């Protein structure tokens, strides 16, 4: 498994390839559409992330010292952003997730396109990912 930082650098490289915002958005939309199907039974209120204008569900599981994330949203751009987060975080152990410094969002120029509401939603998603990791680390 590649490191969290390596995967972030990969994403930064991919986004550098795009010339304008519409290509970036189109990529996020395509990523959102190709996100693996979310188990409908996990679409429950306790998996909802607070602070997003659209609904975002995040679920996690833990085996072999690896945290696996899956998520869904009723908005496709949110889903695209989540798919990037899942790509970065999923499959790592709790310590790696907790230690990770997330810099790709700023470097791909996404945060300048995000409203404060959306940026808060994104922060809530990362916070929730780290809370899951912390819970698994404590349980261990």
């Amino acid at each position, binding site marked *: 498994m590649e490191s969290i930082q390596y995967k972030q650098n990969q994403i930064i490289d991919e986004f550098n390839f795009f010339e304008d915002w519409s290509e970036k958005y189109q990529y996020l939309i395509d990523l959102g559409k190709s996100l693996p199907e979310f188990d409908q039974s996990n679409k429950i209120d306790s998996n909802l992330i607070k602070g997003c204008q659209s609904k975002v569900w995040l679920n996690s599981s833990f085996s072999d010292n690896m945290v696996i994330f899956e998520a869904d949203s009723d908005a*496709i*751009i949110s889903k695209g952003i989540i798919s990037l987060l899942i790509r970065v975080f999923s499959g790592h152990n709790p310590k790696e997730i907790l230690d990770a410094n997330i810099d790709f969002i700023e470097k791909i120029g996404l945060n300048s396109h995000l*409203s404060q509401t*959306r940026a808060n939603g994104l922060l809530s998603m990362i916070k929730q990912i780290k809370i899951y990791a912390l819970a698994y680390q404590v349980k261990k």
Partner: protein
Amino acid sequence: MLDVYKIREDFPILSKKINNTDLIYFDNAATSQTPIQVINAISDYYKNYNSNIHRGLHSLSVDATNKYEETRSKVREHFGIANNHEIIFTSGTTHGINIISSGLEKTISSNDELIVSEMEHHSNIVPWQMLCEKTGAKLKVIPINDNGTLNMEEYKSLLTPNVKFVFVNHVSNTLGTVNPIKEIIDLAHANKSQVLVDGAQGAAHLKINLSELDIDFYVASAHKLCGPTGVGFLYGKSDLLNSLPPYQGGGEMISNVTFNQTEYADLPHKFEAGTPNIAGVIAFGVALDYMNSIGFENIDSYERSLLDYATENLRQIENIKIYGDIDEKISVISFNISNHHPSDIGSILDQFGIAVRTGQHCTQPIMDHFKIPGTVRASFSFYNTKSEIDLFIDAVKKAAKMLG
């Protein structure tokens, strides 16, 4: 007919660039933009006569008091109100509603019933729910029809002898529907019920005469009428306002204070405790003058032409659904395309420099009625243009294509 390009010169913000393109501001139902005359009035106050009102004997205070009270007269004239003292300056519509709802805590009892409509803004629902919680009164709801109008037959059947109040908006902020308030008021009065009209959305588009309509209470906000934020007013008939207890205690609202007993001041001061938003109230008066200099008939007919033009062009877009597609409405269009989430369309429109509102617009019951997570809402004002609508339609089509 108004000269839109000349009017636009009065609004500094309209020449702003967003994402390297010209700003197109279609979120007027949330707040209107501010003309330079209003901005200047605010800075003129702080530069030239900033001082506390009503109590001072010095010249600055007299100037400030006169200008502040001038706005009360302007509001009286514009809204067809009988007396200045029936106008209470507030921080906005929500504040006005809360003055009434908290004032009724002692008079409403558990046998009483209150009526709201399904298309109210949360600010005209939640305070009444809180009042019902405290008093045990029952809240009843006028349902909406699928075309976005009120179900008046249901309203009539809800008007039972126990109904003390009806709370309804003049115009829906989400659907743009203009409600038949005259009929609503006449039916309520025939039932000995009083009516509060939420004018937040209507006041910006339609001139209204509160005395002729025999409205009991009316609330509105300055910031939807080209005025500053944090200012609004509450109108109430003298005898009704006199029957309510004060909302807040403090300076300004008293006539005599001892530790044995305090006497409250007369209207309107009884409800204006503390130092008010003096600059804001004065600027509100300038905003009313500004809009009247353009003329509400001109504003109404111009906005109507923008609404018709935008509606006609939006209808051509595949799989679009417009909520509240009726004749009796102001320049607000709420829509969705296919199953795309409104926030997706809104985010893409923002990249084109187009400001619209997405979400529930503080009217969750409307969203529940239509079983949708929200809508995209474009709302036009008299300073918007048809060429802006062309760019908007084009951007909506591009967004729909991107989302696939």
